[in-house]
């Protein structure tokens, strides 16, 4: 039994310096971006100045959160192969985005995905419903990220949780308020480069201990902890559970508002397509890296030590970094993890703000009529609102087990946002009432069923048995959402909408008239 020797939890100078350097550079970029962020097109969509490759990096940055980096590496370190099953679920949503969503979305919409859902339909009801689905997804995701951030900073630097939340909150508000989409995009790109390089370096240094041969690494893991680590374990016990989670992950990716929003930052549909190709490549590569990192931690650090610092294994990657690269490398990876959190919550905040300002304020409240400067001002005020909300919720949920909220966010995205988006693009007879009822069905079922599921009813409310047996509601809520959307549409004919469908094809497929 090795004695536990780690500097984790002690003040790490390298970490603090690198982190402050990151914040300084990104705030500098925000200052640069601020001068170019005056119009709505600039605030929401970086004036369409982002290239396909850059957007691909930014998208992968948005997706590779600290939760996926630390969480998946941790899961692999403690459970082995199961972590890969989880990763694959997160990855396969991206091809779907490319085949079904990316190009029509870019052609039909302006700044938000609600633009596309509401394209042919009556603006007010559809915008309101879309915004509800959007905001619910964003808020649950935000809570999970903020709570994770506070806990992580607390473990890494010893700062009190509350201080951590406030620092994260203020910096992310600064990025969005002053620099809009341009700043958040470049923050994501920088962070993606840091994360991918850091993880690559970590893998190289880990494999160096095994003669640069991953096979040796896997064999050592099997010798140390048994062959079971190289096989599926308890992750897929109930097939319905696995299918439901798979649905949430695959379809949910295509319904995440902060991801979809990024497609409007590129000039045209072709660049949107390229972004997904680039993003899928980097994300896939990232998951392969986290797999090796997890096994590296399993062998070089040991499962005892990993779970000592955090039962979920979230410290595995950091401990491995320390093991192969000393305190400096630990500091570097810790700073990168922190940067990762900042970038993701900034993107979520911007998405939330754009829902409030572009979807609700302009399209519903002002019925589409507002001047440029006015809308940008409202967008900035919305940023403050969402930011304040994120900080408050982060403080309220301190210490709570909020991991289920990411699953919930994906479930809502898969059940409320995705069905209405897809049906609006491909189905002529989709009506306003159909869209609204589909969104309401999907989001309410997702929330209610998750409350009644083992993750909340048993683990959080401490009831003996769950009322709803599946851990993820997506298979029910997503299916119901589609069925309701289709049936209601068939019963509520909307001639205007179906007429526009044919004309809309010029824009959907040829991009004529795209903004």
């Amino acid at each position, binding site marked *: 039994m090795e004695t536990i020797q780690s500097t984790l939890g002690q003040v790490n100078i390298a970490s603090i310096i690198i982190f402050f350097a990151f914040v300084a550079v990104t705030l500098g970029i925000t200052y640069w971006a601020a001068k170019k962020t005056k119009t709505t097109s600039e605030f929401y969509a970086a004036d369409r100045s982002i290239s396909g490759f850059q957007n691909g990096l930014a998208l992968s940055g948005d997706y590779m959160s600290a939760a996926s980096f630390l969480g998946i590496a941790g899961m692999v370190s403690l459970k082995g*192969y199961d972590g*890969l*099953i989880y*990763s*694959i*679920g997160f*990855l*396969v949503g*991206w*091809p*779907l985005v*490319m*085949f*079904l969503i990316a190009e029509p979305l870019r052609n039909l919409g302006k700044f938000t995905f609600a633009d596309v859902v509401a394209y042919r339909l009556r603006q007010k009801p559809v915008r309101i419903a879309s915004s509800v689905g959007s905001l619910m997804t964003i808020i649950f995701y935000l809570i999970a990220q903020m709570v994770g951030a506070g806990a992580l900073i607390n473990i890494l630097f010893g700062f009190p949780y509350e201080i951590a939340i406030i620092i994260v909150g203020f910096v992310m508000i600064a990025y969005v308020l002053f620099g809009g989409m341009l700043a958040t995009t470049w923050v994501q790109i920088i962070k993606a480069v840091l994360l991918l390089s850091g993880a690559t370096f970590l893998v190289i240094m880990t494999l160096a201990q095994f003669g640069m041969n991953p*096979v040796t690494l*896997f*064999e050592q893991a*099997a*010798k140390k902890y048994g*062959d079971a680590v*190289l*096989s*599926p374990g308890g*992750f*897929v*016990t*109930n*097939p319905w559970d*696995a*299918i439901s989670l*798979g649905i949430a992950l*695959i379809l949910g990716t295509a319904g995440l508002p902060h991801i979809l929003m990024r497609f409007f930052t590129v000039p045209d549909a*072709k660049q949107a*397509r*390229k972004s*997904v*190709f680039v993003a*899928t*490549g980097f994300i*896939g590569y990232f*998951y*392969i890296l986290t*797999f090796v990192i997890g096994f590296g931690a399993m062998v070089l650090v040991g499962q005892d030590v990993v779970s000592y610092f955090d039962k979920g294994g979230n410290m595995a990657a950091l401990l491995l970094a320390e093991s192969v690269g000393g305190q400096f490398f630990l500091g570097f990876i810790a700073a990168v993890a922190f940067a990762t959190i900042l970038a993701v919550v900034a993107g979520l905040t911007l998405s939330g703000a754009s829902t409030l300002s572009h979807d609700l304020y302009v399209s519903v409240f002002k019925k589409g009529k507002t001047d440029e400067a006015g809308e940008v001002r409202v967008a900035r005020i919305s940023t403050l609102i969402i930011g304040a909300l994120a900080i408050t919720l982060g403080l309220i949920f301190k210490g709570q087990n909020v991991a289920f909220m990411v699953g919930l966010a994906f479930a809502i995205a898969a059940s409320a946002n995705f069905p209405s988006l897809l049906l609006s693009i*491909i189905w002529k007879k989709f009506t306003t009432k159909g869209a609204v009822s589909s969104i309401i069905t999907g989001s309410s079922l997702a929330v209610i069923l998750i409350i009644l599921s083992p993750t909340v009813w048993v683990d959080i409310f401490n009831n003996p048995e769950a009322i709803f047996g599946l851990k993820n509601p997506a298979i029910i809520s997503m299916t119901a959402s589609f069925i309701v959307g289709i049936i209601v549409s068939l019963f509520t004919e909307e001639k205007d909408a179906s007429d526009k469908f*044919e*004309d809309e*094809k*010029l824009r959907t*497929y*040829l*991009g*004529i*008239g795209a903004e």
Partner: protein
Amino acid sequence: MGIKAERVTEILNSEKFKNLVKKRLTVSITLTVIILLVYFGFILSIAFYKEFLSIKIGDHLTLGLPIGIGIIIFAWLLTGIYTRWANRKYDRAVRELRNEVLEN
């Protein structure tokens, strides 16, 4: 933009445009079905036939390892296949149609 309404209807009804839409939907749906089959096939094989992925190749390594990593790479390759098709065939057809629509 100044596209005459008759021109729009003409283009929408043209063979060329209808073929474009049909081809696009065929490719999109086919690739979607492929990735869904691969992923859910993987998941269901774990649920119902776990032993398959545990088959040994070598002293300790399992079949699951190359399959799992393979699926990740396959997903990316699929996006590459779509991109290549779109860049070559689809974009060219789009360009031709756009020129026809906008040439007035």
